[in-house]
């Protein structure tokens, strides 16, 4: 009659008694014991168990205690969630869904990375990071990041979230270039300018000697992942406007609006992932020292989401033969498997230190 026993009693290693007509001690049939107490054992199983229990006081006692423990557990009543849990969840969810626009596939792929920041805590975090970075330094940045990692995430109210959303929605400026701009890749003297298509940034033009660095290229090898890559750059040891001006001259990119800077003039572009190393190597050969911000990538990732929110197209930076080419692309034309998003930023307050 054992053959008729349901198979779902068995825990791994549990005795099945498939060829016996009696049960061992209760610890050999734990699952069946639980079924027995719940009144869910079959008639055959119950008869088998009772046969054993009649002759084993220890197992009877064990089952009594299990029943006792179960009855105690059953009187612990569920408690009501906090009254404000519903509005907290629903408001945060609605905000996230609105921004994510999940019903369509027309959302720019990089908007996927808005998810963290569109949670209220993320927005507050990003705003805090931006605020601190604007007046801070890398030291502050590292300290802040260390602190943030220890801070439990508690979502704030919709009001705070919406105020941040409003700020993001206000970013209607199109960061793309108005037209394609070509740059020759090679010696510095070969670089040509077509400034009539580049909006004025107010950054004074500057030149400098070449200072090569080999650290950046390897650091950017992980570009295959479509995450924003943060790159802190300097030019011949200079940061701030001097470095930014050189960067603009070399790449044809224009800085993002000042309120979106991260510690200093900030540029953002999509690059061909397979060209990223080559492109960065080129910039390094032109005198730029580029370091990927490795540790605080999550924090910076939140900040970049603020920067890119609301844009429908973005400048792409790519090498075409010997030309460094900047052109705007609609986000719908951009495949995340091919492009990586890089934010190049320099620091104003390091201008005087090097």
């Amino acid at each position, binding site marked *: 009659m054992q053959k008729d026993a349901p198979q779902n009693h068995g825990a*791994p290693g549990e005795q099945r008694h498939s060829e016996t007509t009696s049960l061992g001690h209760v610890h050999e049939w*734990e699952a069946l014991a639980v079924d027995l107490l719940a009144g869910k054992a079959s008639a055959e199983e119950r008869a088998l168990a009772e046969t054993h229990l009649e002759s084993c006081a*220890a197992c009877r006692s064990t089952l009594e205690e299990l029943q*006792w423990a179960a009855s105690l557990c059953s009187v612990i009543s569920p408690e009501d969630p906090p009254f404000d*849990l519903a509005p907290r*969840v629903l408001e945060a969810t609605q905000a996230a869904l609105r921004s994510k626009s999940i019903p369509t596939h027309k959302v720019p792929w990089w908007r996927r990375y808005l998810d963290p920041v569109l949670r209220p805590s993320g927005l507050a975090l990003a705003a805090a990071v931006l605020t601190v970075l604007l007046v801070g330094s890398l030291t502050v940045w590292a300290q802040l990041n260390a602190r943030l990692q220890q801070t439990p995430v508690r979502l704030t109210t919709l009001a705070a979230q919406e105020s941040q959303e409003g700020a993001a929605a206000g970013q209607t400026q199109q960061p793309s270039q108005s037209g394609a701009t070509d740059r020759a890749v090679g010696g510095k003297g070969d670089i040509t300018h077509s400034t009539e298509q580049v909006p004025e940034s107010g950054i004074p033009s500057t030149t400098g000697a070449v200072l090569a660095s080999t650290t950046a290229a390897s650091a950017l090898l992980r570009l295959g992942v479509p995450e924003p890559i943060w790159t802190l750059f300097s030019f011949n040891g200079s940061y701030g406007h001097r470095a930014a001006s050189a960067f603009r001259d070399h790449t044809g990119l224009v800085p993002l609006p000042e309120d979106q800077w991260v510690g200093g003039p900030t540029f953002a572009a999509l690059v061909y992932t397979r060209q990223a190393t080559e492109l960065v190597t080129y910039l390094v050969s032109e005198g730029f020292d580029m370091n990927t911000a490795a540790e605080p990538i999550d924090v910076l990732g939140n900040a970049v989401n603020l920067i890119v929110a609301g844009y429908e197209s973005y400048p792409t930076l790519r090498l075409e033969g010997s030309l460094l080419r900047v052109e705007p692309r609609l986000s719908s034309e951009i495949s995340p498997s091919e492009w990586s998003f890089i934010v190049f930023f320099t620091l104003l307050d390091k201008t005087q230190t090097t």
Partner: protein
Amino acid sequence: MNSADISDSDENLVARARQGDESALTALFRRYEKRAYNIALRMLGDPWDAADVTQEAFIKAFTSLDQFRGEAQFGTWLYRIVVNATHDHLRKRHLEPLDREELDRVTSAADAQAQARLVGAVQSPTDPSTDGLSPPILQALSELDERFRLAVVLCDLLGFDYAEAAQILDVREGTIKSRIFRARAELARRLKELGFGPSVPAKQERKNVSASGQDTGTAEKNYPS
């Protein structure tokens, strides 16, 4: 949320929620919030942490509805997210023991009675039907191995059937039952240590069980046949 939502199927509500239908989201939330919250509460012990984890889990679920394929019930899928969020929180707590020490200090949780408040007994300090056993039960529960505690919380406290609990935890039903067996045995052992016991003592036999209670899985040697 309107009255029609309350009786609408999960399937319909999820389909509407995917389109951003606020009313459907509200209905889904209301349908599952209490059990979800209580899973977190009984696993974490702390109502604040439980609320945070529940909130995190719901937001994750609601913003990932496109990943819900309907292979499991929506509730099962949601509860699994809650359980995972709970695991994450416990792991984080384990990594940051100072927080717990600080919490204990703030709440002066030196004795079992006070400690029991940490496991969610704030609103039910004394239940006449258990002669004030709730705090020690919750205390004993909080000391169980996480896997065993989860099985008991789901099935014995919140009334999930074994099959659904097995689905939520992605284990075999027999495994759930085995964990419940061991969890209950351990609960009984701890409560007896605190001076409680079944109303009808089993006298001589009790002694044997007590001696073997530490490891119920290898207890056979304690039972003379």
